[in-house]
C-alpha cells in the first residue's frame, strides 16, 4: 500500500471526504434542477448538463447528515461511473491532493451505519482525517438507507 493516489476532496458538515480524481468529470456550481417525485430523499433531482441528463445525489442525505442551510448552495461534483454520469451535491470543494499510501488506513471496526458501507478508508492528514468514499457504493444508494442518523462517528 505504498502507491499514492490523487483525490478530489470536498467538505460535508465539517467532515472531509475524497473521491479518486480519475472518476471526476468536472466540478460545477449549483444548477437548477428538476425534482423527481417518488424518488428517494437522497436524490435531489435531475440537471441538464449540456444536453445530458444527470441525477444529483444529495450527499448530506446520503450520509445521514443534517440538511444544508437554505442560504448555502451546494456544489456539483460530477462523476463518471459504470452506470453513467451522476453528480454529488457537496457543501464545498477542496483541493486535489496527492496522498501517500502510507497515510492510508482501513476504517476502524467501530465505524458503523452508512459510513461503514461507503467509506473505503481513512487518510491521516496532519490537520485532519480525510475519508475516501466508494463511488459505486454511494450511487447504489444502499439498501440500509441513511435514515439511521448514526453517521459522524468517524473519530479515530
Amino acid at each position: 500500500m505504498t502507491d499514492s493516489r490523487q483525490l478530489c476532496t470536498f467538505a460535508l458538515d465539517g467532515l472531509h471526504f475524497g473521491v479518486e480524481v480519475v472518476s471526476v468529470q468536472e466540478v460545477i456550481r449549483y444548477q437548477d434542477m428538476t425534482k423527481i417525485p417518488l424518488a428517494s430523499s437522497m436524490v435531489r433531482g435531475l440537471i441538464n448538463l449540456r444536453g445530458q441528463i444527470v441525477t444529483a445525489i444529495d450527499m448530506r442525505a446520503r450520509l445521514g447528515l443534517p440538511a444544508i442551510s437554505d442560504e448555502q448552495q451546494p456544489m456539483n461534483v460530477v462523476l463518471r461511473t459504470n452506470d453513467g454520469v451522476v453528480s454529488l451535491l457537496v457543501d464545498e470543494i477542496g483541493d486535489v491532493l496527492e496522498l501517500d499510501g502510507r497515510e492510508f488506513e482501513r476504517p476502524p471496526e467501530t465505524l458503523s451505519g452508512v459510513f461503514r458501507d461507503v467509506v473505503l478508508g481513512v487518510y491521516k492528514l496532519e490537520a485532519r482525517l480525510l475519508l475516501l468514499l466508494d463511488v459505486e457504493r454511494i450511487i447504489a444508494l444502499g439498501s440500509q438507507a441513511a435514515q439511521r442518523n448514526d453517521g459522524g462517528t468517524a473519530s479515530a
Partner: protein
Amino acid sequence: MPSDDDDLMREFLTESRENLHQLDRDFVELEKNPRDPHLLGAIFRAVHTIKGTAGFLGLVKLESLTHIGESQLSRLRDGALTLDTQLTSKLLAMVDAIRQILTSLEATGSEGDQDFSRVVQELSGIGVAPRPDSTPPAPLLPVRAATPPPVPLPQASGPSLPPAAPTESAARNGAADTAIRVDVALLDRVMNLVGELVLARNQIMQFGLTSKDAGFVNASQRLNLLTTELQAGVMKTRMQPIGNVWNRFPRIVRDLANVCGKKVTLELDGTETELDRSIIEAIKDPLTHAVRNAVDHGIESQERRIEAGKSAVGRILLRAYHEGGQVNIEISDDGGGLAIEKIRARAVERGLVTGERASRMSEREVGHLIFLPGFSTAEQVTNVSGRGVGMDVVKTNIEKIGGTVDLSSRPGLGTTLKIKIPLTLAIIPALIVTSGGERFAIPQVNLLELVRLEGAQARRGIESLHGTDVYRLRGNLLPLVFLNEALRLSSVGASEDVRNIVVLQADDRQFGLVVDGISDTEEIVVKPLGKELKGISAFAGATIMGDGRVALILDVLGIAQRANVVSPSRDRAIVDRAREQRSLQDTREALLLFRVGKSTRMAIPLSMVARLEEIAPEKIERAAGRDVVQYRGAILPLIMLGRELLREPSAEGTAPLLVIVYSENGRSIGLAVEQILDVVEEQITVRSQASREGVTGSAVVQNRVTDLLDVHGVIRRFDPSFFNRKEAA
C-alpha cells in the same frame, strides 16, 4: 493485400446473408409455383453468385455444396426435375448448411468442421436414377437466355440496403453507385447528435419568442426548419422496411406447418412499411412468436377445417401500415378463433384468476388472458409451443418499446393480433402538462383526448364512487387518477374551478389523469433515467425542455398500475368493480313486459317492437289455417302466444286483442298477448337458460321471474320462411 481479402470476405458475408433470406422466401414461393421461370432464375443466380465468390475466396466446402445445389437447380430449370415438397426440403437444407458455414466463417474465419456430406448426398441423389422417359424435354421457357430478366423480386427499399440479389457485375456496380453500406453505430451516433440539435433548436426557439431582433428571429426560424428536415432525413436513413423481418416468415411458416401436418399459406401485405432500425430489431422476436402461434394454435388441422366447411389450406395474413405516426401490424389467421371456454377453464386451473371472476369475464377479457405469463392451452408441450411462454413475451416486448397489443377473435373465423408501435424510439411527440409546479411529458401514443371542466362542472363533474373518483365520459365511468396524489406532489397551482382531465389508454383500460395545467404538444427527445431511478415505475425517462430544464416523461402504464387502474394480473378487484358498474350501464336495456296466458310474465327488448295495436276480436279472420287481420292495407298474420307457447286456449270474448307488431324489411307479423304490463329499463341477467321452446332464458325483472321471449324462434316456427323471404325481397 490481406485487408483487401478481409473486405471482400466481409462484403461476401453480408451480401450472402441477404441472398439467403431471399432464397428462403423464393423456395417457399417456388413450392407453390414450381414452374415460375423468374423465381427459378433468381434462385439459380443467387446460388450461383455464392458459389462463384466461394470459389474465388477458396471456400472449398461452400463451393462444393453450392455446386451440387446449382446443378440440381439447373435441372429444375431445364425441366428435367420437378419440384416437390421433398425436394424443396432438401434444397432448404442446403440453404441452412450454407448459413451454418457463413456463421462459422463470421465467427472463426474458417468454414468450420461440420459435416455436410449428408446434405450433399441427399441432394445429389435426387433424380439420379433417370426417369423412364428421360429424353430431356424441351426447356419450358428459354430462361437460359444470356441476359437475365430484370429481377422481379420485391426489393428492399431502404436506402441503406443494396439490391437483394445482384448478379451481373454491371448491376452490382450500378447499385454501388447509388447505395453505400453504413455502420449502424455511426448512424446511431448521428441520430444522437440530431437529438441534441433538436434540443438546442427548442432552446433557441424559446429565446426567439421573446426576442425583438428580427434578424435573430429569422435565423432561428430557418434553423427550426432545417433541423426538422435534418431530423426527418436522419430518421429515414435508419428506416428499414418491415419486409426485412418478414423475410424469414415464409420459411418459418412452411416448416412449422409441415411439422404440424397443416397446410398454411402466408400472405404479406405492406412489406415496404418502414420502421426505425431499433424497432425492427425489437419486434423480430415477438412477431416470430406470434406467427408461430398463429400456425400452431390458430390454424386448425386439415380435417377440422374441411369439417367446418373451410378450405383445407389455412391462411395467415401479415399486414403492416402507417397510421397516425404509428405503425400497425396485424397478424390474422382464418383458423378456429380462440377457444374462449377452454381459456377460461385453463386460466382458473392455473390459478391465474379465480373461478368466480373468470365466469364474470367478457369474451374479450378472456381473450386477453392468453397474455398472462404462464398461460398455455396446448395439451402437449411440443417443440413449437405449449411451454407457457409465448404471448406474454410478445406483449411485454412490444410494451417495452412503447407499443400496444390487442387481440380480437371470432369463433370459427379466426384470430387477429393487432400490434401498434411507434415509428421511432428516440424522438416522440408528447403532451406537456404541469402538476404541483412541475412539468411532465406524456407520450402522445397513450393519449386519447383532453377534457376540461370549468366552474360548477369542475366541482360537480367529478364524482366519488366508494373512494374512487370517476368522471362520466359520454355515459361511461372513467376512473380518475390525480397526478398530484399519484406522485405525492404538493397541490399548489391546482384550482378548484378548473379541472383538466387527460384521457389515457393503459393496457386495455382507459383512465383520466387529472393535472393542474395542460401546455402544449412538443417533439421530445427521450433520455433514459439513471439506474438509481429505474425503480420508479411512474417514469419512462426524461427530456430537456426548451428552457433547458429537465422534465420527466410519465410512464402511463406505470402510473395506471400504481393507482390500481390496471394491475398486473393478480388483483384487479377494484377495477373489476368499476368495470362492472360500467357494463351494468352497457347492458341496460328497455324491455317490454307483457303477460301471456293466465300468469306467464314475458319480456322482449323494446327495440324489437314496431308498434302495439289493439284489435277487436271480430276483426280476426282465418286464411290458410291461420289467424290474420287486415292491417294498414296488408294482411298481418297473428301468432297467439298463449296458444302457441303455453297451449292455453285463447281467451274467448269481446275484449280487444293486444298485438305486438314485429316488422322486418317491410314484412310484419303480430304477436297476440293477454296484457301489456310495463316498459322497464333494467339490466338483464339471464338466470336460467332456455327451459322450453320459444324462450331464450329467464331473468328477474322487477323482482319477478320473467321469461325472455325468443321472438325470432317463435316466428320461425310459425312461418319458417318469414326471414328467408325477407332476404329474397
